[in-house]
C-alpha cells in the first residue's frame, strides 16, 4: 500500500450491469441423470453485488445447481440468462470467459505447484500472448507476465498468504489450501464467483478468517458471490439472500431471517416424513 506501486485495483469485469440488477437468472430448470431427478423446475436469480447462499440438506441438489450455472451440466429443461444473454448449453471454459469462476467442495489445486503458480494459473484466461510468445518470454510476453504478476501479488496481499508464496500447495494445511483456491478463482476477476462449501472441514478460527475474506471480496471488489454452505451461522451472517433446496426442489427463497423462520425449511432440516 504505497505510492511506489502503481497497480490498478482489481475489480470485477465491468459488465455494464448496475448494482442490485439481475446478473443471473435461472428459469424453470430441471436436471436429471437417467431416472434420478437432481433438480426439478427451479427458478432463482442472483443480483449483482450480493452474496447469495444456496442451502439445503445433503443431496438437495445444491452442487448440481452450481454445476448448471457454470456450464458443467446442461439442464434438460429451462433457461439460464447471464448478463442479459440467454443460453442453454455451454462448456465450463466458456463460463470462465464470460466471468464465472468457482471453487470446489474438495480442493482442486495443482498440488505440486506453489501458491504463486496456482494463482498465476488463474490468470491464464486473461493472457493474450500465445504459447510461442510465452515460451520466448521476451518483449510483449514478458511485459504481460509482469502485469499479471502484479495482479497476483495483489491477491496474495489481499488474502494474507505472503508467507506461503513459494510453498507447494500440497504441503499446506487444508484451511490455507482453501484460501489459495479462492485466490485462484479471484485471479480470473470474475463477475460471478461460485463457492462450493468454502468452509467445509475448517475450525472456528479458519471459518472466521474465511468469512472475513468472502465479505471483503464482495465489498471491496464488488464481486457477486453465490455460495453453498452447511454452517447455518455463517450463512445467516454472510448472505443477503438465501435459497433453500430440498430433494431438488426450491422450498424457500428470501432474506436470511425469513428463511430461518420458514416452516418448510425447518421441516426439511429437522426431518419430516415426505
Amino acid at each position: 500500500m504505497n505510492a511506489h506501486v502503481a497497480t490498478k485495483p482489481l475489480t470485477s469485469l465491468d459488465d455494464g450491469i448496475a448494482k442490485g440488477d439481475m446478473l443471473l437468472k435461472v428459469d424453470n430448470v430441471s436436471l436429471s441423470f437417467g431416472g434420478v431427478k437432481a433438480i426439478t423446475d427451479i427458478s432463482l436469480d442472483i443480483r449483482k453485488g450480493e452474496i447469495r447462499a444456496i442451502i439445503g440438506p445433503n443431496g438437495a441438489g445444491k452442487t448440481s445447481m452450481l454445476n448448471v450455472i457454470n456450464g458443467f451440466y446442461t439442464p434438460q429443461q429451462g433457461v439460464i440468462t447471464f448478463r442479459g444473454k440467454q443460453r442453454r448449453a455451454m462448456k465450463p471454459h466458456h463460463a470462465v470467459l464470460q466471468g464465472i469462476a468457482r471453487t470446489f467442495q474438495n480442493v482442486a489445486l495443482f498440488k505440486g505447484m506453489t501458491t504463486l503458480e496456482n494463482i498465476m494459473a488463474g490468470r491464464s484466461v486473461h493472457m493474450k500472448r500465445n504459447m510461442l510468445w510465452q515460451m520466448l518470454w521476451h518483449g510483449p510476453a514478458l511485459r504481460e507476465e509482469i502485469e499479471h504478476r502484479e495482479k497476483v501479488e495483489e491477491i496474495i496481499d489481499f488474502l494474507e498468504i505472503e508467507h506461503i508464496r513459494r510453498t507447494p500447495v500440497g504441503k499446506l494445511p487444508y484451511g490455507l489450501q482453501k484460501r489459495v483456491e479462492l485466490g485462484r478463482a479471484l485471479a480470473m476477476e470474475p463477475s460471478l464467483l461460485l463457492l462450493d462449501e468454502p468452509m467445509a472441514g475448517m475450525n472456528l478460527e479458519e471459518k472466521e478468517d474465511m468469512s472475513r475474506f468472502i465479505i471483503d471480496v464482495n465489498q471491496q471488489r464488488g464481486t457477486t458471490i453465490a455460495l453453498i454452505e452447511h454452517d447455518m451461522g455463517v450463512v445467516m451472517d454472510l448472505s443477503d439472500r438465501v435459497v433453500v433446496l430440498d430433494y431438488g426442489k426450491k422450498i424457500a427463497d428470501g432474506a436470511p431471517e425469513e428463511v430461518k423462520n420458514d416452516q418448510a425449511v425447518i421441516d426439511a432440516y429437522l426431518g419430516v416424513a415426505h
Partner: protein
Amino acid sequence: MKRLMGGTGLEHASTSLDTFPKYLLLNARRFADRPAMRHKDYGIWQSWTWAQQRDEIRAFAIGLQEMGLRHGDKVAIVGANRPRLYWTFAAAQSVGAVPVPVYSDAVAEEMSYVLDHAGVKFAVVQDQEQVDKVLSFRDRMPTLEHIIYDEPRGLRDYAHDGLSDFGDVQARGEAAMRDDAGRAARWEEAIGKASGSDVTVMLYTSGTTGRSKGVMITAAGAVDAAVGTASFDQLSEKDSVLAYLPLAWVGDHYLNYAQGYVSGLCMNCPESQQTVAQDLREIGPTFYFAPPRVFEGLLTSVTIRMEDGGWFKKWMFRKFIDVARRHGEAILEKRPVPLTGRLAYGLGEFILYGPLKNVLGMSNIRVAYTAGEAIGTDLFSFFRSLGINLKQLYGQTEAFLYVTAQKDGNVRADTVGPAAPDVDIRIADNGEVQFRSPGMFSGYYKEEDKTTETLTDDGYVKTGDAGFFEADGQLRIIDRAKDVGKLRDGALFAPKYIENMLKFFPNIKEAVAFGDGRDFAAAFLNIDLTAVGDWAERNNIAYASYQELAGHPLVYEMIAKNVDETNRRLSHEPMMAGGQIRRFLILHKELDADDGELTRTQKVRRSFIAERYGELIEALYDGSPEKFVSTEVTYEDGRKGRISATVTIVDAKTYSPAAAPVQEAAE
C-alpha cells in the same frame, strides 16, 4: 550533547543535533540518495531514500498540524513494523508531539489503559483490527480526537468522525504546502529550534508486575545514547537492519529507530510476521538482534533438517561443526590458531558455514546481540563459532536500552559485558545493580511516586536485578534483587541462579531453592519424567507413577550426582560458593500451574510453594531423613484429590571454595 566520532559517519554530529528530526534533515542532505527504508510489499522490496523519507514525513507532519496536532500532544502508534508507522514517530517529534507506541497484540482493555493514561489525542494505527479496538473504547476517551490508519482495507464503509486514511492526511499536508509556499521551510525551522529537553518518546513497560508505566525519554539523552552505541559498534549509513521486533518495545525503538537516525543506516520492514525468516535471507542485514529463544529455535531447525540429510552430509556436518567448535571463536576473536586449524576452518567456511549462514540470512552480519534471558553456553558458542559476531547486552526501558554491552573480542556467555559508553554502574549493598546513563528516563508519566521509588537519592536508577562484576569488569546478572537473600552467615543466596544451574541437567525439570535467613541452602526438585523415564526403561526399573519413580533410591542416587556437580560449580564462583545445596528432596508430585505452584508461563511461584510445603521445608532444616506429607491436587477436570507420600530427604556433598572436595555431613 556533543561527541565527535571518528570514521563512522557520525562526525557531522555537532552541538545542535539533539533531536531525531534534526538527524532526519541532516540525513536527507548528507545521505540524500542512500536508502533509508525498505518494505516488502506485493512481493517486491520497495525503498525510500533519506530525501524521500523526509518528504513523506514532512507531508504527514504538516497534515497532522492541519488536523490540530500541537506541541506536547500525545500520538499513539499501534501496529506491526511498517514504514508509515515509523514515519509517524518522526512526524510527531518534528512538531514537538510525543509518540507513544503501544503493543499491537494488546487486548482492547490494556490498550485503552495506555491510551487513556497517556491522554493521547491522535492514534495512528495499522489496520482495521486496530481501528476496531480503538473504536471499542473511544467513547470513554475524551482526549482522543483522530484515528488514522495505514491500510484502508475493510474500512471503506466505516462512517465514524475523525477516522482518516494515512494517505489522505499526507495529501492534506501537501495541499497546505502548495497553498503556503513558506510552510515547508517553517516546518524545518521549527525542527531546528526544538529543544533537546523535550520528551522524544514515551515507552510503556510491558507490565509484568502490575500496571504498565509510561517511561519518558528525553530527546537529547536519547540521541546521546544512540550516538554512543552506534559508534561503539561502528554503525554507518552502509549498515542495514531488519526491523521485526514490536514497535512498542524499547529494543526496537532504540536499535532500529534511534541508532538508525543517528547513523543513517537502512531499516527494512518485513512483509509480514510469518515471512521474517525469508525476508532476513533476502536482506542479509549487517546488524541483528534476537532474544535467546530465537537462536534456540534456529539451532533446533538446523539440527532437525540435518537429521533428515544423507549419511555423508551428516558426517560432513558433524566434522566441520567440530572444527568450528575448536577454532571458530578463536578466529572470530583474532586469537592465534594453528595453521592446520585455520585451513580446516577455511574449508569449513566454504563447505558449511558460509552456506549455512546464507540460509539463516546471517552472511553479512557484523554485529549481533542477544539479551533478555540467560543464554546457554553451547548455544551461544555455536553461532559464534560459525563466525557470527554474537554478543550480549543488558538493558532496560528506563535506560533507553543499553546498560552494558560486550566489546568485540571480549565476549562470554555468562556475562553481559562492561558498562556501555558513558554509563555508570554500581552494585548497591543489597546486591542490586544501579546505573546512570545518558539515555536514562526522566520519569514515569504522571507517576511521581513510582519515579522516586525507582531512583536513588543521588540519581541512579534501581534496576531491580541483582548482579556483580567479574574480575575482568564484565557484569553478571544473577537474579531479581527482591528474590536474592542472605544465609544466616551472610553469604549471598540467589535462588534463581542456583535453580537455573540445576535445571541445566536434563534429569531435573524444576527446582526451588530455599535459604534466605537460614543456615544453608536447600532445594526441592522435580525430575523430568521424559528423561528419567527413558533412563528407567533402559535400566529395567519398573515404576507406575511419577511419585514412585521420584522416590526410587537409584533416582535419588542419580540426582545426587547432579546436585553434587552443581555444588562443585558453585564452589568455583567466589560470590556463590556459600549457596551450595546441603540438603535436597525430590517432590512427590510435579509442580503444576493448575495447583497454583507455577505461573501460566511456567515460572516457579516461590512464596506459594514455601507456604504449601512448609512442613517439608522444616524437614529440610531439622535434619529428619524423611517426612510424610499429604497434598491436595487439582485434576484436569477440576476435581480435587490428595496425594500423600513419605518423602526422602538426603544430604549433598559440598565443596570448600578452594574447590577441593571436603566431605561435610550436614547436621
